[in-house]
């Protein structure tokens, strides 16, 4: 895989390496703006992270991270968890996503988003997500959602 070349990175059926793919995804666009970084992965999960920044604040009074940053983080992590479970890149888009915010992500704290793919059918990937500040036992948000595979998508 050529990390400088998005076409080879995102070609249907390309063997999936979350760290390598994220290195590309965090270079451009929204992932680049948020500086989304690879954290770790398992068989059916991928964890990414975003550092706190003052331009990502959702409440200037407290400095907590904007909740939408957590959505972007979990959107990417859960999407990647499907490719991780499939073992290959397959073009797909988010169909729906739900987040429950247990608590805000405090000022200065790096936020981690772990996406877990618990089931895949031919067309649909079913995912859950957990956001935390370094301790998975102290989550700040839970997510659930579905992704739909794009047929005939040309890279």
């Amino acid at each position, binding site marked *: 895989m050529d990390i400088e070349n*998005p076409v080879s990175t*995102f070609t249907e059926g390309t063997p999936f390496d979350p760290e390598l793919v994220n290195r590309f995804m965090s270079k*451009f*666009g*929204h*992932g*680049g*703006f*948020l500086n989304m970084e690879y954290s770790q992965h398992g068989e059916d999960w991928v964890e990414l992270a975003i550092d706190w920044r*003052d*331009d*990502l*604040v*959702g*409440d*200037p*009074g407290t400095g907590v991270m*904007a*909740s*939408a*940053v957590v*959505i*972007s*983080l979990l*959107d*990417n992590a859960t999407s990647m968890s499907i490719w991780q479970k499939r073992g290959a890149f397959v073009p797909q*888009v*988010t*169909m*729906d*996503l*739900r*987040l*429950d*915010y247990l608590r*805000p992500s405090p000022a200065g704290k790096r936020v981690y988003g772990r996406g877990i793919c618990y089931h895949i059918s031919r067309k649909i990937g079913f995912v859950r997500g957990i956001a935390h500040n370094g301790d998975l036992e102290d989550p700040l948000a839970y997510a659930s959602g579905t992704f739909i595979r794009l047929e005939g998508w040309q890279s």
Partner: protein
Amino acid sequence: MNHFRDDLTALLPPYAQSLGMFVRHMDGTGPVIEMPFDQKIQGRPGFLHGGAISGLLEMAAIAAIHQALIARHGDAPIRQVNVTIDFMRGGLPQTSYAAGTIARMGRSMANVNARAWQGDPEKPIATAQMHYLIKSAQGG
């Protein structure tokens, strides 16, 4: 009305301002938020990132609640409990808009719906349902 619009834009957090969002105008039901296209909000090549669209929907909801609170008894701090987003169409690299509708606003919580669109307001790119806690002066 423009003064009120600027006041609501000032209520948008740093996150919204760094993505170029502002209150474009007030329509019959409430504030319309505009988000200009920028590389900063692009997802897969040629399309907006779902997280940025979600951010736009959340800002529309927040603006709608603050407007409703100001119209009722005066503004109050709010806290988001959850959000469910339906992504209906790919967001194209062009200007996006969103508006929130208060489905119900009680003493301590608000149910809000929001929709985002681009060229045609009748063709939403995404919709969302959200719940917010309204904090009272007594700390409730």
